[in-house]
């Protein structure tokens, strides 16, 4: 099922890149916005503009005014590279946003130790099998009822949606979800479509948590295995849009389908996770613009998981979704708060980037997350050695120009 990314529409006009003046104090800020518009669809490899690269470019601009250039200062001046390297030592986006919390067992003294083991046995020996049996039978029931509603009952009855909703609820029950919902829940009957829900993203279970209240259509990364099967059948039947993160053609199609979807009021409200990737629920990475370019109201949804029993972060690169679910099912409970917030509309004096940033700030404040100026895509497009090579090339070419 779920859920990723809607940066499809994000396209940065290269014009505003050079429009701003490179004040040093502003360079951090600019970096934020640069990495923001990452969804430059035409280029697959995303260019990151780090503060260090910014320093180098700035130097290059001032340099061109000089007449004669010495080689020595250029060779000795590596401040741009140093800037980035040392900043990474102090703090790096990867460790911040995508690192799982290390589970520290609380069995560190003699009277806690037996208790901890007792708890462990109950969770793995009793709760887990029960829950597994429950979710497997729920899956069987879902399969039967979904195919019935899909092939027999007319679409207008909305039984498919109901099935998906109940199935999501079954999942939440399977990890004893204790979810508190705050704020007005999305209405079921009346207003559909014409509005976009955006939320921070911790795991694919976000979708389940939200859908058990009212079904959503969602933009999702294609998955394989049983998740992929669900996506191709059930999720497609309720108008979810799936795409492949790395396929540029797909991204174009998504933009179109997004527009069609919000224009059609009979469809389910659209849910978008503009971070485009799962973040560990302590931080919030930059939002992609896609959801904010549609010209419709945006309802911010903030989801905060309580890490008391289990860390709900799904590290998709280390863990399959099944394993992630097993982890959740063998914990005591999944405790979360969900806030539905006031619908927001883009102000007239606001660009879609600023609008996205404003919504992000709202979500971060509500859920107690820390907003960081990093791009979630870095999780997939790991800073590659190519980036290092291109940097060396840039450095070399300015040097060689100096030689001539």
């Amino acid at each position, binding site marked *: 099922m779920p859920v990723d990314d809607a940066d499809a529409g994000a396209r940065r006009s290269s014009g505003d890149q050079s429009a701003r003046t490179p004040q040093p104090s502003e360079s951090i800020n600019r970096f934020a916005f640069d990495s923001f518009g990452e969804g430059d669809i035409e280029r697959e490899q995303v260019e990151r503009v780090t503060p260090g690269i910014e320093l180098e470019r700035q130097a290059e601009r001032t340099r061109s005014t000089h007449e004669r250039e010495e080689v020595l200062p250029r060779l000795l001046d590596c401040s741009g590279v140093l800037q980035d390297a*040392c900043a990474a030592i102090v703090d*790096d986006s*990867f460790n911040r946003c995508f690192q799982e919390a290390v589970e520290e067992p609380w069995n560190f003294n003699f009277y806690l130790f037996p208790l901890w083991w007792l708890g462990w046995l109950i969770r793995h020996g009793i709760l887990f099998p029960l829950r597994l049996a429950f979710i497997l039978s729920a899956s069987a029931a879902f399969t039967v009822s979904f195919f019935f509603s899909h092939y027999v009952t007319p679409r207008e009855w909305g039984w498919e949606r109901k099935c998906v909703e109940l199935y999501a609820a079954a999942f939440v029950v399977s990890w004893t979800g204790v979810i508190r919902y705050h704020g007005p829940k999305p209405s079921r009957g009346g207003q559909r479509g014409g509005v976009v829900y955006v939320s921070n993203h911790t795991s694919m279970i976000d979708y389940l948590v939200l859908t058990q209240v009212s079904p959503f259509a969602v933009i999702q990364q294609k998955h394989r295995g049983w998740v992929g099967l669900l996506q191709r059948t059930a999720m497609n039947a309720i108008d979810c849009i799936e795409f492949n993160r790395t396929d540029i053609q797909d991204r174009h199609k998504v933009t179109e389908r997004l527009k069609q979807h919000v224009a059609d009021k009979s469809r389910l409200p659209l849910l978008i996770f503009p971070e485009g990737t799962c973040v560990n629920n302590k931080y919030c990475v930059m939002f992609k613009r896609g959801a904010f370019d549609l010209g419709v109201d945006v309802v911010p949804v903030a989801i905060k998981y309580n890490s008391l029993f289990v860390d709900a972060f799904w590290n998709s690169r280390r863990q399959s979704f099944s394993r992630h679910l097993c982890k959740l099912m063998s914990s005591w409970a999944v405790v979360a708060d969900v806030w539905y917030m006031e619908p927001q509309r883009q102000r007239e004096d606001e660009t879609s980037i600023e609008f996205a940033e404003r919504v992000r700030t709202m979500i971060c404040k509500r859920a107690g997350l820390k907003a960081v100026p990093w791009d979630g895509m870095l999780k997939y497009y790991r800073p590659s050695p190519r980036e290092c090579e291109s940097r*060396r*090339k840039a450095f070399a070419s300015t040097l060689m120009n100096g030689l001539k």
Partner: protein
Amino acid sequence: MGLTASSLNLTQYDIEDVQQHCDGKFTSREIQALYARFRSLDKRHKGFLTEDELMAIPELAISPLAPRIVQMFQNQNFKDFVKMLSALSPRASRDDRLRFMFQCHDVDRDGEIARSDLETMTRHLVGSSVSEEDFNALIHRAFEDLRAMRAERADAREGSARGVAFDEFRRALSAVDRTLPTVRVPVDDDA
């Protein structure tokens, strides 16, 4: 004195100690944040960072200067780690920053940037994108510039000192009038 790897938290005394060690370039909250960072990088709580642990930071690993930076920061205890970084703190002077850069260039740590130091660093910085002749020409030109600079000041140094000394380094970079690297320590509210 609790600055061994085993201590979970810094005491007020430790913090003051570290602060003194880095001439007050970091606030106590910054030092706490740095300590948390240090501990999270130091996977087995040995009290220092190894090459592998530093190279595990993706954004550092892709830096052209990664090998040199890692060399500078590896196997340092927390106090020296902070001292090293303090040269780049927002409170550090231009000279502090320049000295850090100088240290970075001075690969063999003999107090001057000899030809071999410059060659090593330039190799890191340009990689394989420059041909051998061009590379040699670059180094040659750099030392010509150095000679010209010395002639200008009419303080031709003795034959023994062949490399770039720190005051020459500072002079060479005096024309580079721009922001030098600065490292901001993110201070968490929950730190």
